């Protein structure tokens, strides 16, 4: 997604940005997915659709909406495109089953019209599988607007400011769940979700850098449109890139234990909390990795990763019953700190340590580095050798000494 200008890397940031760009969904693939879900949206809203009266609208949520999509671990894996099919119905007129079946019926018709396999029913959504070459599938989540009830519940729990913030709670939805006892009954008590409110919160955590990235894109591409008209998905901020790197690190580390790996929403939420509008990817990674666990709080002895747009919801609610998930999160965090710190603190920019390379995918890392390094560069040679002449070392030391002297030396050695 990031427009890559082919300049040669000169810093750790250049290399990390190249890896993040390689991790991102390719622009062509993103556009293909966008066109396909828009086509599905048009199908659901066509005049002869059984849903037409309910004015269905399809839109992405999850990592597609947040701009934190990462390439699947292998070419055999697929991008998971999460979609919401929101209809203008009411819970007094529809059961969860009726909504799920109605959306499923139209999605199945769509699949048949395009010679695709029948959609698979999941607990809360329909999965639409595309042909092998497409390398993605779409999870379509049927939903109704449910902001009023969501805001009333926030208010009842004392979250007054959230309840009155239209961006954060005014687009909440009710979703279906076929495991619930009242699945086929008319009831007001549907499962709720607030992906658009979450996305608004997430965007708020990187507002300065998002605007800056758009301005930079406009200048680079000579775009005359105002910054507000540039879609968010055209750019990536250091926060989004950092999350992409961290999710990839997690995927590689838990390639054989996917069931118990730290979940993306926890990594994304904690990273966004810790992020402080750092301008560079390296600084963002340092801040996030150093501080993200501070946003896990204890409620009555239970670890709590609060949904920022519904603090009563705990993203880590599985940890008490499956302690391995909690242990894996902290194990992953310690390893990610160690791996990224080894690169950013202990290595020259052109030498990605083997451990980090292994946990980001050696092929991907090598390809990303090759795209920003001259072919004849001695990749892998330690900096102490590269710049290791007496004069070069002395010059670096002189700069360091000058800097300490400017800032006021804190110590002078002594002997007892």
């Amino acid at each position, binding site marked *: 997604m990031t427009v890559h200008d082919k300049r040669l890397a*000169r*810093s*750790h940031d250049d290399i990390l940005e190249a890896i993040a760009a390689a991790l991102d969904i390719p622009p062509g693939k993103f556009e293909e997915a966008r066109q396909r879900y828009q086509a599905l949206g048009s199908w659901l809203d066509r005049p002869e659709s059984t849903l037409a009266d309910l004015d269905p609208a399809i839109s992405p949520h999850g990592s597609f909406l947040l701009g934190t999509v990462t390439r699947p671990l292998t070419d055999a894996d697929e991008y998971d495109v999460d979609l919401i099919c929101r209809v203008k119905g009411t819970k007094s007129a529809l059961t969860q089953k009726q909504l799920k079946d109605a959306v499923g019926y139209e999605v199945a018709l769509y699949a048949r019209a395009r010679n695709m396999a029948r959609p698979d029913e999941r607990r809360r959504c329909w999965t639409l599988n595309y042909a092998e070459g497409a390398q993605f599938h779409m999870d379509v989540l049927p939903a109704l607007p449910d902001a009023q009830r969501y805001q009333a519940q926030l208010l009842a729990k004392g979250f007054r400011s959230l309840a009155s913030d239209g961006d954060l709670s005014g687009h909440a939805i009710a979703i279906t769940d076929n495991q619930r006892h009242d699945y086929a009954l008319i009831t007001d008590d549907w499962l709720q979700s607030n992906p658009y409110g979450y996305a608004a919160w997430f965007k708020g955590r990187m507002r300065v850098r998002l605007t800056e990235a758009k301005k930079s894109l406009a200048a680079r591409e000579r775009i005359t449109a105002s910054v507000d008209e540039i879609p968010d998905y055209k750019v990536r901020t250091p926060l989004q890139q950092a999350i992409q790197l961290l999710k990839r690190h997690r995927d590689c580390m838990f390639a054989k234990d996917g069931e118990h790996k730290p979940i993306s929403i926890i990594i994304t939420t904690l990273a966004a909390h810790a992020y402080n509008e750092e301008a560079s990817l*390296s*600084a963002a990674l*340092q801040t996030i*990795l*150093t501080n993200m*666990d501070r946003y*896990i709080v204890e409620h009555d002895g239970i*670890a709590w990763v609060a949904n920022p747009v519904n603090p009563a919801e705990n993203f880590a609610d599985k940890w008490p019953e499956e302690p391995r998930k909690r242990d894996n999160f*902290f194990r992953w965090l310690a390893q990610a*700190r*160690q791996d*990224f*710190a*080894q690169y*950013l*603190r*202990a*290595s*020259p*920019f052109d*030498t990605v340590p083997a451990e980090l390379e292994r946990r980001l995918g050696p092929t991907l890392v090598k390809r990303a580095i090759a795209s920003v390094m001259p072919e004849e560069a001695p990749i892998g040679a*330690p*900096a*102490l050798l*590269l*710049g290791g002449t*007496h004069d070069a*070392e*002395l010059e*670096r*030391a002189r*700069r*360091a*000494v000058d*800097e*300490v*002297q400017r*800032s006021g*030396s*804190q*110590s*002078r*050695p*002594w*002997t*007892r």
Partner: protein
Amino acid sequence: MRWMRCSAAVPSRAPGRAETIALLTLSEVEAAIAFDQPGLRATCKNDAILVEGTFLVTDGNGACDPEGPLTQYAIRIELSPTYPRIEPRVFETGGRITRDPDHHINGDGDCCVTVWENWLATAYDTGIAAYLSGPLREYFLGQFWFEKTGSWPFGERAHGMNGMEEAYADALGIANRRRDILYYLRILRLPRPKGHWPCPCSSGRRLRDCHAADLWSLHRRIPSHLARAMLVRLQPRKGELSRTGF
């Protein structure tokens, strides 16, 4: 999420004059080294926290150096849970630094990083992270510079008691005269300096009528526990302390 302590909390002084010291925890040390010093590992051993491994000396402070660290030293740090009241002991374990006073290695093998109380009195932040990125980094940067040039980039203190007096005088902001240093510390060791004592400026007036405000300001930087520690290290001779100031 870990709140491991190497030992239980201890009162800093006798009951009745209670002042609780926040004990240094393993998780604090781990947080301090987690990103900036990835070559170090912290463990608890008995009551102490041991930090061992490779200490990186970077040529920038905070940001990552494109060329990697300037140099690195194998070290061991022994931290008391009552840090910063108790000075950390640092050992260079790789044998790179000659073990002699001229290389600022003490007789018992530990590195003489700085006059501890001088740093405590003058630094804005005396947390463990600030120590690692401040005096310790400067010490090893200085060692590297000395290796290359034969000189100490930030100067050096005189050996032994003379260096300590020099550092204390700097911390107090006064001329380096032992008698004056002792009198200042005698005043500052009290929780509330005595207003009827002679002012240390030698004006002959009482402190409350002269430089009381300055002394109070100094007392915030050098609180009584630190002044007492400095006095103890100066090892005043019998009667020497009582003669100062009067």
